[in-house]
């Protein structure tokens, strides 16, 4: 099982990729790592932090759910309107990787829930992420880095 380190601002956490349930997406993700980009807080989904990926995929529809849980690590195509509001409103998306740090959150698009590929589970440091994300919301967001341990 591949273990990855997630560094957000001043804290770190660790996740295990789910190579059984999402073999193709995790293989694709491993090729992409390490990732270092600006961390962004969701403006539409609740307590979600994500980063843009420097590719548009494609990613397979695999291990998908609209019922994301705290600690799920997921990838999906986020509507561009929630990343760059000035963009035109036809179907343009950004491929992102993200996680939810507190319950009562759900990934949504323009017309309802969005299915996301669950690629792993944060197994260590979730509390630290849940503390750091609200702090960064107030003080400004820094970087997120994800790398294979």
């Amino acid at each position, binding site marked *: 099982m591949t273990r990855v380190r997630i560094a957000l601002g001043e804290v770190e956490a660790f996740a295990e990729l789910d190579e059984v349930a999402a073999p193709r997406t995790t293989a694709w993700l491993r090729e992409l790592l390490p990732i270092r980009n600006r961390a962004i807080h969701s403006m539409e*989904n609740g307590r979600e932090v994500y980063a843009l990926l420097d590719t548009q995929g494609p990613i397979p529809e695999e291990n998908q759910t609209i019922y994301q849980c705290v600690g799920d690590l997921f990838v999906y195509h986020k509507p561009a309107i*929630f990343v760059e509001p000035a963009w035109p409103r036809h179907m343009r998306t950004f491929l992102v990787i993200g996680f939810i740090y507190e319950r009562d959150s759900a990934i949504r698009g323009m017309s309802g829930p969005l299915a996301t590929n669950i690629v792993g589970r944060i197994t260590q440091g979730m509390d630290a992420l849940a503390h750091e994300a609200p702090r960064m919301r*107030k003080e400004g*967001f820094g970087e997120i880095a994800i790398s294979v341990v």
Partner: protein
Amino acid sequence: MSDQAQGLPASPRRIRISLPGSGAAAVADLLDDDCPDTCSALWDLLPLRLKATHDIWSGHLIRSHLEGDTYLEPENVLTYIPVPGDVFYYYRPARYYRGSPYGRLESAEIGIVYDHDTRPQGPRGPEAVNLFAEISSGLEELRTACEAMIYEGQKELIIERMDDP
């Protein structure tokens, strides 16, 4: 001679909404006809110097908490799609949501919608808000400053009277 004395509609009361840290400012007209009690109550609180935070549920809007959790009755209720420039009041009673969002058991807030594809909502879905003002100028520069808050964090928000009637 005043507009009213000439039989013309009275000019709306106006408020200035500014984010001094980014130099952005806009002017909004109060909706006194549709939302008189909310307009009067908030007018009496001005000037307000608040911390504004980008919303995380609703799309393109920022919100600020009113100190003292000022409760106002629902009025000119907007439950669905607001348009850019809408300014609203929202009250969340104690224990409405799990825990204390934003560190507040209950909350009274002012929200400003700065772009399309926005709907006031929280963990339990869309929320009804009191639509009490509409931005009539300066929305474009305010939009740029508000959008930046999702990356840059909180900013100071000042709401003040433009003129007394």
